[in-house]
C-alpha cells in the first residue's frame, strides 16, 4: 500500500514537470520584454539590459527553464513580481489561507448537499422530490458561476441586505462565495449519486440484506451508499478541478484575498511571474488532491485495496499480433 502511494507520488513528478514546462513555454513566448515591464516606461536601454542580465533573461531557453525549476524546487522561489518587485512566493503564500478556506467550504457544501439530495432522490425515485431535484441539478449545472455569484449578491446583499457582498473576514462573508463555487458541483454530484445509488439498489446483495430482515434505512446507508461511494468520490474529485476554476472567478467577484484574485489582477497588468507561480501552485494542489482521491478509493473499496497491495505493476496492453496461424490455414 505504501509502495503504491510512493509510486504514485513518483509518477506525479513528470506530470508536474510537464505542467511547469508548458506554463513556462506559454509565458516565455508571450510578446513583451519582462525587464521593460518591471522598470516601467522611463527606463533607459542601459537599465533594461542590466536587469536582463540580472534576471538571466539572455540565457538560452532551456537554461532559463532549468533555473526556474531549480529555484522552485530548492528555494521554493517562484521569481519576482513585475509590479511589486517582491517575491512571488511570499505573496502567493499570504493568499493561500483564504483560497484554502473557500475551497474546503465549497467542497463540503457541494458534497453534503449533493450526496444527501442524490440519495433521497434515488430512494424515492419518480417522486416529486426526485423530479424537483433533477430540475435543480440541471439548472445548477447550466448557470455560469460568475453569474450565480452576481445574482446572489443582488438578492442577498443588495435587495435583502442579509449578507455582505465582499470581503472574507467573518463566517458571514464566507457563505455567498462558498455557495457560488459549490452550486454547480453540488448539482453534478447529486446526479452522479442518484445514478450510482439507483444502480446499486438493483443489485442482488441488497435483496440479500432485505432477506435478512434488515431495516430499509440501514440498507440504504450501510449497504447501498457504501457501494455507491466509488463513482461518487470520482465525481467529487473531478468537480474539484471545476471548483478551483470557479474559486478564481468567485474571488474576483467577492474580493476574497486569495490566490485566484491575485492571479486575475496579475493577468490584467501582465505580471507574468505571478500568473506562472499561481498556475503552478494550483496545478500542484490539484494533483495532490487527485492522489488523495485515489488513495481514498482503497479505503472505501477493499477490492481496490487488494489491487494496490498486490502489485503496482501496470498491465501492459498487448499490441495486435498478426496471427501466423491464420495464414497457415487454407
Amino acid at each position, binding site marked *: 500500500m505504501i509502495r503504491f502511494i510512493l509510486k504514485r507520488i513518483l509518477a506525479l513528478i513528470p506530470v508536474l514537470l510537464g*505542467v511547469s514546462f508548458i506554463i513556462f513555454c506559454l509565458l516565455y513566448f508571450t510578446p513583451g520584454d519582462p525587464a521593460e515591464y518591471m522598470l516601467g516606461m522611463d527606463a533607459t536601454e542601459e537599465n533594461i539590459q542590466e536587469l536582463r542580465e540580472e534576471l538571466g533573461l539572455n540565457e538560452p531557453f532551456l537554461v532559463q527553464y532549468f533555473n526556474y525549476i531549480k529555484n522552485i524546487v530548492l528555494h521554493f522561489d517562484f521569481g519576482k513580481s513585475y509590479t511589486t518587485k517582491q517575491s512571488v512566493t511570499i505573496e502567493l503564500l499570504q493568499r493561500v489561507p483564504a483560497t484554502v478556506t473557500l475551497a474546503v467550504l465549497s467542497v463540503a457544501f457541494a458534497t453534503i448537499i449533493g450526496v444527501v439530495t442524490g440519495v433521497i432522490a434515488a430512494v424515492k425515485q419518480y417522486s416529486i422530490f426526485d423530479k424537483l431535484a433533477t430540475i435543480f441539478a440541471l439548472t445548477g449545472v447550466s448557470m455560469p458561476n460568475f453569474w450565480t455569484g452576481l445574482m446572489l449578491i*443582488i438578492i442577498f446583499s*443588495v435587495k435583502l441586505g442579509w449578507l455582505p457582498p465582499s470581503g472574507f473576514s467573518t463566517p458571514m462573508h464566507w457563505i455567498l462565495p462558498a455557495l457560488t463555487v459549490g452550486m454547480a458541483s453540488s448539482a453534478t454530484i447529486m446526479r452522479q449519486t442518484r445514478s450510482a445509488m439507483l444502480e446499486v439498489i438493483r443489485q442482488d446483495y441488497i435483496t440479500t440484506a432485505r432477506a435478512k430482515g434488515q431495516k430499509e434505512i440501514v440498507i440504504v446507508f450501510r449497504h447501498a451508499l457504501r457501494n455507491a461511494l466509488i463513482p461518487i468520490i470520482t465525481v467529487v474529485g473531478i468537480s474539484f478541478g471545476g471548483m478551483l476554476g470557479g474559486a*478564481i472567478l468567485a474571488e474576483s467577484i467577492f474580493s476574497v484575498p486569495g490566490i485566484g484574485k491575485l492571479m486575475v489582477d496579475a*493577468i490584467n497588468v501582465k505580471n507574468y511571474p505571478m500568473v506562472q507561480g499561481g498556475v503552478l501552485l494550483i496545478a500542484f494542489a490539484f494533483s495532490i488532491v487527485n492522489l488523495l482521491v485515489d488513495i481514498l478509493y482503497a479505503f472505501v473499496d477493499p477490492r481496490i485495496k487488494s489491487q494496490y497491495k498486490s502489485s503496482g505493476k501496470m498491465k501492459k496492453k498487448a499490441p495486435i499480433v498478426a496471427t501466423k496461424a491464420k495464414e497457415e490455414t487454407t
Partner: protein
Amino acid sequence: MTVTPTAIDTSIDVSSIKKETLLQQTWNGLKKNRLAMVGLFLIILLLFVTIFADFIAPYGVDDQDLTRAYTAPCKEFIFGTDDFGRDIFSRIVYGSRYSLMIGAVAATLSAVIGMLIGSLAGFYGGKTDNILMRFIDIMLAIPSTLLGISIVAALGNGIRNVIIAVAIGAVPAYARIVRASILSVKEQEYIEAARSIGASDFRIIMHHILPNCLAPIIVQITMSVAKAILEASALSFIGLGVQPPSAEWGAMLSAGRAYIRKAWWIVTFPGLAIATLIFGLNLFGDGLRDALDPKLKT
C-alpha cells in the same frame, strides 16, 4: 442431411440500412423524451436568433443614447439599457453570434484533435500510447479554467485565441473516449478477422473502431459546446478574450458589474441568456445520451 449454401445476395447495401435505422432509432428515442425536445427547441431558438438577428433586434448593437442610460426593463427596452443607453435585448441578440461561433468551432476543433490523439494512442499502443497519455495527463493536471486563462494570457485577447484556449482544454476528454473505445474493441476477434483479409490500419480505424465510439463522441460534442460557451464567457468576465464593447455575453456581465446596485438588469439578462442556452444544450445532450446509450453499448 447435407446443407447447401445459399448464394449471397449482394443487391442489398447493408451499410446504408444500418445507418438509416440507427439515426431513426435515435430520433425516435429522442422524440419521446420531452426534456430533450425542450433542449432542442432552445438550441434551435438560438440558431434562429443568431441568423435573424437583424430582424429580431429592435435596436443596433452599438446604438447609444446616453439620455436613456440605466433604464429599467420596460416596453421600449425589454431588458432595459446599460450604462451607455444601449438596448440590452438587442445586444444579447447580436451577442449570440459569439456564443454560437465559439461553441461550434471550439467543439469541432477539440473533437478533431482529441480523436486524432486518442486514435493514435489507442491503436498503436506501447510507447506512442504512453507518450500521448502522459501529455493528456499533464493537460488534465491543470483545471480547464486555469488552462484557458494561461493560454489567453499568453496569446492575447481576441476571439480567435479564446477559441484556441477553450478547444485545447476539451481535447483530453475526446482523446480518452476514443482511446478507451479502441482499447475495448482492439482485442476482439473481428478486428483480427478484418486484418486477416487484408484491411489496412486506416480502414480498420475508420470502419470498425470509430463507429463504436460514435455515440459517446456525439454526446461529448454537445457537452463541449456548452462547456466552451461557459468558459469563453468566464474568460471575458475576467478581462481576457472578447472584451467590451463587444456584445459577448460574458463581456456584458463584466462591464455591468460596477452597476449592480444601480441597474441590476445589466448583469442579470446576459447571464440568463447564457444559462438558458447551456440549459438547452445540457437537456439535449442528456437526451442524446439516453437515446444512444442502450443501443450502442460498447
